[in-house]
């Protein structure tokens, strides 16, 4: 491939290489270490490094799966690790390491104590993020987020009961009024709900996502039946069919509630969940595709943002300790996006998607990008 852009990039790199060799001799290089991990040896390019952001580039030269650990001086506490390095592969471990004594370990075959050696991080005098007991903060985030997920799942269930009761009774106006406010509880925990690969397709599949011969069930099946205006030649569901689909949705919702009761969440799961919710906004809501029949996409939009915000809030104490600037950036972006969304409020909810002008959609999309970029760095920041 020879696109001008690539050639240009290559040229720029070449120029940079010619004219500026300074970075190669800066102390930064001392923080780039290589680890050659064979089935019986664990060779590090250096046994010491200055404090700061260290990169261990671990190459598995052996024949079995390998791992690399940086342990605290006690040889017990894992400071950082990289697992599942297949034979022949190289994987980087990046971490922020304060001065102190450590132990490195390669673990060929993923068994035993590993091939260990002492490692010293000297004080570079440069600030390194404070450390402390992250575990307590992660546990607090888990407790907070887990409680949120369970609460939303339960609200989803009670809302769904009310919704399907109206729907099966043929009270269409009431069902339409309940549709979006109930789905909000689904959308707030959408990434968790989607993690149940068997429930999600039964509950939230869009018509275009069906494969041939697959029966369409769930929220959007009922949505189309309640808002058939955009459907050509649509055959309304008969009362018995309504009852069947409604009962199915309710049963699956009960199952969802059941499963969320025992869930726990790691810091990266919470952080990636927040990013995932914004991805949902970017690909489904801001484009008006999620609620094709009801046009209630902005309710879902807000709910995804709500869920992402709760996830971030739970991790804030940890994030502020690790990367306060990123926390501020995320906060600013949430505020900006919320202000924009608030402009489209109407009554208890929002205007329908078709009321948005292309320019308004574009500015919402831009605000999602503004938030998504820093939010995508949340996981690596809290894990650092």
């Amino acid at each position, binding site marked *: *491939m*020879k*696109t001008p852009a690539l050639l240009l990039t290559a040229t720029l790199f070449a120029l940079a290489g010619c004219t500026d060799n300074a970075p190669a001799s800066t102390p930064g290089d001392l923080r780039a270490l290589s680890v050659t991990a064979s089935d019986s040896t664990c060779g590090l390019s250096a046994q010491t490094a200055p404090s700061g952001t260290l990169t261990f580039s671990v190459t*598995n030269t052996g024949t079995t*799966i390998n791992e690399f650990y940086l342990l605290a001086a006690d040889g017990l506490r894992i400071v950082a690790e990289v*697992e*599942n390095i*297949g*034979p*022949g*592969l*190289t994987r980087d471990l990046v971490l922020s390491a304060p001065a102190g004594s450590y132990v490195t370990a390669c673990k060929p075959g*993923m068994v035993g104590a590993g091939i260990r050696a002492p490692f010293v991080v000297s004080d570079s005098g440069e600030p390194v993020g404070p450390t402390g007991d992250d575990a307590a903060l992660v546990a607090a985030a888990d407790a907070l987020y887990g409680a949120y997920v369970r609460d939303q799942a339960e609200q989803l269930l009670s809302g769904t009961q009310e919704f399907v009761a109206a729907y099966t009774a043929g009270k269409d106006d009431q069902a339409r009024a309940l549709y979006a406010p109930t789905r909000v509880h689904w959308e707030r925990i959408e990434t968790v709900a989607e993690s149940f690969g068997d429930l999600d397709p039964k509950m939230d599949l869009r018509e*275009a*996502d*069906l*494969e*041939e011969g*697959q029966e369409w069930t769930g929220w959007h099946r009922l949505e189309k039946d309640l808002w058939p205006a955009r459907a050509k030649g649509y055959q309304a569901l008969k009362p018995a069919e309504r009852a069947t689909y409604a009962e199915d949705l309710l049963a699956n919702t009960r199952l969802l509630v059941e499963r969320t009761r025992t869930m726990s969440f790691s810091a990266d799961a919470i952080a*990636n969940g927040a*990013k995932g919710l914004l*991805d949902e906004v*970017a*690909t489904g809501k*801001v*484009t008006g595709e999620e609620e094709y029949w009801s046009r209630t996409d902005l309710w879902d939009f807000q709910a995804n943002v709500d869920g992402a915000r709760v996830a971030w809030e739970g991790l804030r104490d940890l994030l502020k300790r690790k990367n306060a600037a990123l926390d501020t950036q995320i906060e600013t972006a949430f505020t900006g996006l919320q202000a924009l969304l608030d402009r489209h409020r109407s009554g208890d909810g929002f205007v329908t998607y078709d009321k948005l002008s*292309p320019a308004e*959609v*574009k500015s919402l*999309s*831009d605000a999602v*990008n503004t938030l*998504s*970029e820093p939010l*995508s760095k949340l*996981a*690596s920041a809290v894990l650092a």
Partner: protein
Amino acid sequence: MTDASGLSRRGLIGSVGAGAALALAGSGALYASGREAARQPTGTTHPFYGVHQAGITTAAQDRLHFGAFDLNPSATREDLIGLLRDWTAAASRLTQGLGAGTFGPLSGPYDAPPDDTGEAIGLDPAGLTITFGFGPSLFAGPTGRDRFGIAARRPEALNRLPHFPGDALDLAASDGDVCVQACSNDPQVAVHAIRNLTRIAMGRASLRWSQLGFGRTSSTTSDQVTPRNLFGFKDGTANLRAEDTAGLDSHVWTAPGHDPKAGWLDGGSYLVARKIAMHIETWDRGSLREQETFIGRTKAEGAPLSGGTEFTAPDFALAGREGRPLVDPDSHLAMAHPDRNNGVRLLRRGYNYVDGSNTLGRLSAGLFFIAFVVDPRTHYIPMQTAMARSDLLQEYLRHVGSGLWAVPPGVAAGQFVGQALFS
């Protein structure tokens, strides 16, 4: 090839400065009275005539212009045959670096429009190949009418591809009676080919849609380096290669007797095209861990996550922490692997595309997937059905265009493409 009335693009250079052209071409040029006789153009050319059409096992060029044409409602069987005859003649010339018509872009009657549009003057053909295929609608038009008296010879496997989960097809950029794949290492040469073939078709057929592609996403010969797609990963590592003749015979070329009604297709193939939009903005926010997990290979070298180097066979059983396989069973690598697909292999020949950007300021970008297969019912539909359902990568993909065409065998000198269909 020699064409007494022909005018090569290099001949045109000659008409401006014969000496320069001679020096450049390094071969003798013959000049007839007032009109350049044909010369053998230099540059990279592939033979147009052969057992199979060029542009399938030909080393994948860097650029694509793919056109899908519909015959005009009034077109007759004779119009179709005439069009194929004219297209064959033009393609046989264009691929050799000659003009689309017998006069070329700068000759012919002074009061007539030139029979070649001229933007390829002075350009190397840069490996141009032109490959033709016949779509299901050629055999039965929109109303099911047998417009061209060929319905009885429609191959069993030539049906519109089914709806796959998640498909969001733009029908205006899908299907077509006839497809023309023009590939070259020079984008202007590929565009020149489609432009001139479109012009030749006017009155008989019109362009339904066309697609530009850059950056091949597959290698089709062993000495080509595996290129990268817009996800930044190597694509097509396990592709069928030209050197694997046994593999091609099993998985690409239709064998005699494969379909008694469609003997005209013997030695041909099927071309599956899918325009696959990529959500690259959200993809770019995924961690390297997620990206590599979804693909099943390393981003650096393209090695399977079970270890080794790019061409090491993946070990799907090799389990890491918590007993989980290093290569996720739902990764793109695992889903597309022959082990998961009854041993079928594809000859992929796709291209990256960027159609500018959309109203949200996102790149309208993705992969224009092209595959040549012996039978789409065994070699594409089952795989795509499974991938649309389970491939982790699906989260970042959306199929927005689709087409299937039967690709007739190669053309012998003096014949036209697909001639056996009409005999």
